[in-house]
């Protein structure tokens, strides 16, 4: 099977190189009117089919690696290092992406899969798809070169083959790790498609904005995957890492956030190009940057450039990524310089107080956030280079610099929908803003009455209360603004059709799914931010617990009912059994545990979490006192965390809704059954 896998990778490389070269030659001939021995159209078609073949060959290679994992083929070095006999089946499957070589194979396979869909649907626009297919072929060549010559997943073990593997990193043996990396990679890789379309459209001086319509769904689906990937990663970190948080501003986390920020900016600003022919250069560079940041993120994770909790080991493939990144940038810059006159805006912004301006500022703030993350991630390297001292840039930096930028973005999210296109009169601003501002003020008063003291920022080093207060007020502003948009439209429909308000809201949403789906996404973002804000009020306690001894935290009493240990072929376990009481009533039983994996000889904390809308009671088994044998338990009370996951579900729903065609378009597209008599009449008429 390793030989089959290696052959499949070589074949995939040959096919993708053909896609790039033949596609490039054909497109060049079509552009210049030149002809070779084969007609350019036929040559382009062979390139397209080779691209489809790349998918089949890459799939075969991925299958071969998974097969090796399931059959415990430890002659393959990758399987030896990332699997073992006792590893449960789903994690053997996940071994495909748990190491450097396997995850690069996943990258290449997903890219080939995206390319497959694109090439199969080439009739949407044959010429533009041919350009995009050729560009994707170029990206594919890079990843297959890596897999064939720098990070080979089918390398064989030298000497005697061990009887068992070293096992999968225990941190990765968690259900979400089966789905989080593929989601994240679907997001990373997916941005290659709008990138290829944008670059292709620029190369061929594609008339109009149709390429944006073609790529809109690609971009949204990709953005959705990346969003899900990031939040699944957060949930995994929260559930597995056992430090009570979900985002540590780790360089690898930052690497996933950067393309998400620019991708979000692109999703917003592209509307300006569609509707008003503005910001064309900006959009092109946004999608270029998003793709380059996805590659840069992969580089960060794999090169050892920055130290990170969950980066792959330092390896020489970083140089390959640097070269690729430089080539991509050079191609983008060169194409832009050649074709920039094609990107002249058809309109200019007419007023600072307009919907267009709000989009522009929204983009600016998203880019500032992206720059802040990039700056914080790379500053240690800059510092070492300039002053010879490596410094750490972690959560305190981002909390001070990035959080205010995020709150400013929330403010723009609130005011954007309230502004008219082109320009807003002062009267309309006053009319639209009164209710949201009152809602924000009332929220502020309620929040203070509930015990949040924003003025703590003046008396302590805690900014949390202040940020949380601002977030709640701005959240109310956004929700009221979004609500009033729904209400205003629904009232008109209700007046005209006599439907009730709820039915009118549904009809309104179906008429313009993109707009109202977008508003639902904004609402989801507010819910997520409310969840984040709870972090300002986290509490924690740690204590060694004897039998029936308890810890008090918030409204809970956590009492030790017992502690013991257990074993199975994969790991040994130590755990504590805890009874949780609230107001004297037993609420739940919890069993935080510590595992020690036999194959990898690594420990893992398994968190026990009792989640409610108000807070999470998050308990970890911190260790055992060697003198008494009693468990040491760390308890966290994390407010509002559940709202983060609810918010994500709302975002997913909103994005899904925005992907559904509008009601009118759907009606136009649906077939209408024609009565047989009418058909017969038409036939007679034709005669």
């Amino acid at each position: 099977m390793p030989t089959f896998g290696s052959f499949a990778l070589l074949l995939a490389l040959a096919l993708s190189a053909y896609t790039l070269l033949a596609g490039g030659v054909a497109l060049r001939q079509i552009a210049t009117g030149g002809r070779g021995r084969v007609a350019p159209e036929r040559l382009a078609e062979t390139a397209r089919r080779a691209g489809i073949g790349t998918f089949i060959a890459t799939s075969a290679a991925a299958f071969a690696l998974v097969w090796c994992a399931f059959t415990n083929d430890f002659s393959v070095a990758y399987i030896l290092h990332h699997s073992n006999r006792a590893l449960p089946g789903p994690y053997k499957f996940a071994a495909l992406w748990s190491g450097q070589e396997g995850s690069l194979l996943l990258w290449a396979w997903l890219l080939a899969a995206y390319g497959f869909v694109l090439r199969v649907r080439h009739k949407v626009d044959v010429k533009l798809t041919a350009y995009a297919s050729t560009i994707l072929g170029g990206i594919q060549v890079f990843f297959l070169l890596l897999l064939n010559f720098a990070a080979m997943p089918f390398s064989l073990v030298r000497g005697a083959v061990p009887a068992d593997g070293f096992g999968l990193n225990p941190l990765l043996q968690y259900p979400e790790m089966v789905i989080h990396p593929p989601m994240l990679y679907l997001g990373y890789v997916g941005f290659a498609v709008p990138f290829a379309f944008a670059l292709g459209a620029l190369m061929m001086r594609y008339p109009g904005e149709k390429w944006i319509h073609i790529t809109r769904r690609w971009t949204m689906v990709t953005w959705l995957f990346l969003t899900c990937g990031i939040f699944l990663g957060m949930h995994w970190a929260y559930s597995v890492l056992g430090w009570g948080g979900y985002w540590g501003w780790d360089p690898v986390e930052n690497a996933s956030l950067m393309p998400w920020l620019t991708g979000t900016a692109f999703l917003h600003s592209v509307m300006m190009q569609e509707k008003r022919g503005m910001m064309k250069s900006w959009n092109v560079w946004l999608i270029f940057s998003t793709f380059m940041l996805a590659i840069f993120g992969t580089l960060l994770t794999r090169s050892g450039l920055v130290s990170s909790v969950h980066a792959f080991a330092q390896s020489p493939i970083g140089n390959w990524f640097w070269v690729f990144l430089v080539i991509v940038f050079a191609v983008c810059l060169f194409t832009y310089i050649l074709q920039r006159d094609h990107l002249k805006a058809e309109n200019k912004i007419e007023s600072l107080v307009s919907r267009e301006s709000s989009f522009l500022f929204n983009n600016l703030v998203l880019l500032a956030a992206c720059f802040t993350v990039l700056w914080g991630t790379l500053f240690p390297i800059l510092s070492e280079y300039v002053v010879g001292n490596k410094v750490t840039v972690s959560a305190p930096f981002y909390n001070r610099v990035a959080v205010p930028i995020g709150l400013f973005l929330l403010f723009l999210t609130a005011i954007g929908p309230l502004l008219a296109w082109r320009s807003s009169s002062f009267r309309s601003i006053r009319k639209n803003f009164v209710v949201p501002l009152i809602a924000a003020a009332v929220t502020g008063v309620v929040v203070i009455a509930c015990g949040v003291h924003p003025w703590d920022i003046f008396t302590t080093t805690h900014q949390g209360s202040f940020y949380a207060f601002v977030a709640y007020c701005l959240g109310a502003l956004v929700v009221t603004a979004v609500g009033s948009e729904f209400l205003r439209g629904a009232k008109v429909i209700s007046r005209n059709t006599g439907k009730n308000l709820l039915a009118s809201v549904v009809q309104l949403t179906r008429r313009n799914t993109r707009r109202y789906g977008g508003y639902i996404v904004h609402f989801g973002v507010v819910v997520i931010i409310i969840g984040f804000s709870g972090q300002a009020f986290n509490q924690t306690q740690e204590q060694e617990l004897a039998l029936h001894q308890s810890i008090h935290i918030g409204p809970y009493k956590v009492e030790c009912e017992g502690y013991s240990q257990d074993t199975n072929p994969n790991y040994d376990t130590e755990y504590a059994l805890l009874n949780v009481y609230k107001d004297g009533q037993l609420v739940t039983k919890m069993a935080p545990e510590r595992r020690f994996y036999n194959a990898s000889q690594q420990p893992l904390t398994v968190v026990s979490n009792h989640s409610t809308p108000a807070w999470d009671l998050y308990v970890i088994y911190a260790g055992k006192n060697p003198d008494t044998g009693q468990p040491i338990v760390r308890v966290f009370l994390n407010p509002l965390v559940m709202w983060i996951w609810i918010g994500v579900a709302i975002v997913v729903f909103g994005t899904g809704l925005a992907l559904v065609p509008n009601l009118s378009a759907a009606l136009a597209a649906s077939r209408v059954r024609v009565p047989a008599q009418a058909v017969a009449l038409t036939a007679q008429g034709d005669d």
Partner: protein
Amino acid sequence: MRGPGPTGRAIAKVTLIALALGMIAALSMGVSDSGTRFNDLGNKLMCTCGCGQVLLQCNHLGCPALARETAELHADIAAGMSNNAILIAFQNEYGPTVLAAPMLTKFNMIAWIVPPLLLGLGILGTVLLVRRWRQRAAAMPPVQQSAEIRALRDQVRRETEL
């Protein structure tokens, strides 16, 4: 479009100034409070065991560095040292990477200044650019529009609105 009157402009200015002051306050405020000092400082220091995590977030079971550093932190607070003095003491003992964020000194100042500065410059540049576009548009002769064309434009705007 009918622009805001003097009162409106004044309100807009006050709002903008309040926002700017709020952001500055958020970025710069904060003095020490003995009640939460351990948590505050513990979240400003890194664990030195090599896990790359903030001290109070280190999840390594039985981490020796965590125990040693937290003990030192407790001792320093009990000794009445100021927050700054404690951070400097840790920096001297473990090197600059023990601080979770660079201190406001010399070159490290750049880390803190550059992002808000660039955002400020970006906003300023955008405002100036839009004003320039507006002035250019104002310099062009106004297009004579009949009531029919205005109605048509309004319809187009309504139908193309997002």
